[in-house]
């Protein structure tokens, strides 16, 4: 399995490693308690570049600040200080409308837990991000959704409701959904949490292939084996981000 992963990594080196997203000196402070005077820094002065075709992994203990950093990088959480540049544009200088649209078009996020819309079928869930800013979904997007679902082994379940899917299937659906708009950046927060070994392998391979296909992928995980799929690995410890050398 690892041989095939390494061959994918090698072919990926052919892709130009452009920086797509750059997080610069991000800090996020929280108040302790509802009206607390004291604050603590969940993320301290973290900088990170995400490059085209590379899978970047952040590992760390629970509560170390990984998710907070991912949310800030994804434009979902305003940093206390620092900035996030996407294609050279400071995301947090944009209005909510502009930032939302940018996120829709360029960033795919796989949040923690199950985030399917239970009123929509699997295929509709996958297509949903592509419906936000247009009245009709083009046929090619529908075809793409079907191909992606086929790729992750969910062809037979595309007309099912999310409640009929297992945890692994829901996670694969969430990845496909994050990819539907061909984002430049894919961010996955603990995508293998609660999954068995087989599903974990499937999910990590999908992410690896996505990176190799030219997308900048950020993976936040506890999974020890995930490092084998990553091009670079960072470690988060008490809000501080450090790069782990190979």
């Amino acid at each position: 399995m690892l041989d095939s992963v390494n061959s994918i990594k090698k072919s990926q080196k052919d892709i130009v490693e452009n920086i797509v997203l750059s997080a610069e000196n991000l800090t996020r402070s929280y108040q302790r308690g509802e009206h607390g005077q004291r604050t603590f820094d969940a993320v301290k002065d973290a900088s990170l570049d995400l490059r085209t075709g590379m899978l970047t992994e952040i590992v760390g203990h629970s509560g170390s600040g990984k998710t907070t950093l991912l949310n800030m990088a994804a434009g979902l959480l305003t940093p206390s200080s620092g900035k996030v540049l996407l294609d050279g544009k400071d995301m947090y200088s944009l209005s909510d409308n502009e930032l939302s649209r940018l996120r829709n078009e360029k960033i795919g996020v796989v949040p923690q837990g199950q985030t399917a819309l239970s009123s929509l079928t699997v295929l509709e869930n996958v297509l949903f991000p592509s419906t936000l800013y247009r009245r009709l979904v083009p046929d090619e997007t529908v075809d793409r959704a079907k191909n992606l679902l086929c790729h992750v082994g969910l062809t037979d379940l595309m007309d099912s409701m999310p409640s009929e899917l297992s945890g692994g299937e829901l996670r694969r659906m969430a990845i496909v959904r994050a990819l539907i708009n061909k984002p430049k950046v894919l961010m996955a927060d603990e995508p293998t949490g609660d999954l068995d070994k087989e599903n974990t392998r499937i999910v990590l391979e999908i992410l690896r292939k996505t990176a190799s296909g030219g997308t900048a992928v950020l993976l936040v995980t506890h999974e020890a084996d995930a490092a084998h799929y990553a091009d670079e690995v960072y470690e988060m410890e008490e809000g501080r981000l450090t790069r782990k050398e190979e």
Partner: protein
Amino acid sequence: MNRKKNRFISWNRLPLRSLTAFPGRTWSLIALTAILSFLLFGGSTFLKSLETGFSTLEDRLGADVIVVPEDAEDKLQKVVLEGVPNYFYMDKKVLDEVEKFPEVEKASAQYFLCSAKAGCCSMPVQIIGYDPDTDFSVTPWIRESTKKELGLFDIVVGANINADAGGQIKFYGNTCQVIAKLSATGSQLDNAVYATNDTILALTRSSVEKGINYLAQNSPEDEISAVQIQVRDGQDPESVARKVVSAIKGTAAVQTSTMLSGLSDSLSGGRKTIHLILLMVWVLSAVILFIAETLLVRTRTAEFAYIRTIGASRRMLSGMILAEALLCGLAGSLIGCLTAAVILKSFRTAIEAAAGMPYLSPGLKYTVLAALLSAVITLLSGGAAAFLAAFHTSRADTGTLLRKEN
């Protein structure tokens, strides 16, 4: 998937999909808004029906003062306000004496008769005889239904009598022709039958012939039941009533406004109470709606956070929550108003009896306006509750919401 199916999952349709996917949640909200709109529309229409009934009765009575035998004051009120058929008589000369008063503009006699049993009615009806030459209180209303002069055994029936124009009703063996049916007043006058004095005299004679001779101890030609008085402009009906009573022995004079003042007071008190209840219900419903919307939005935080994650703006998310609330409000308003309308119409008689006051539906224009206003208030209340609940969620950082959910 074809293009038709693609349309099905458009952003605009998501609120409807969310509502239909969770029928329990949706019907709870619809039920809440339906109760609010039912009470607003039902309450205001009920109140307006009382006001319309009262004002129609006031107009229909026409006279300023009604002179009756001295022991018949209560009986007259029972005939007019409670619909209990009755009869009482006094000498016809009372009319001549009343006409002599300079303060009296118009005076006209009426003759009250009770049917024993009529084919059309399940109970005795009040038959009111009037003199077409001098009458000023009944004729204007009859003119609204027919231009035809009433001949012998021609009758005009109140709105509640089970017969229509062209039909026939038998009284004491005489077949009476129904010439017209009066429009509803919402009062007990709707249960009466009107005829000219000639017809009444003929009916009275028939009743005597049939041995039902309790109706008049003396000759019916020499008796009347009441004298309707319209006073001249500038004259005080109360002082006219006093003068008549002191001048004509054995009579009582009922001032119409006084007779209706009890009703008016009850209506005024009832109006205040109903307005207060409506206000309290509205505040209570608005609070309950707000709590329900807040709880609902909280239980759906993960869903909303995810929708933001994929790129929906705050405005889009608030719009979606608002659209769901408005759809529920619209359905609730419709159900509430329709239910209220059906209940008010179906149980009109029971409501009228329970209210103890004239009760007349205010007409289509008012009903439609009241329904629209109730729907707007309901929608605004539900919309405001949803907006307040959505505001907090949409303003929060999506990352913070996701963190809370995890």
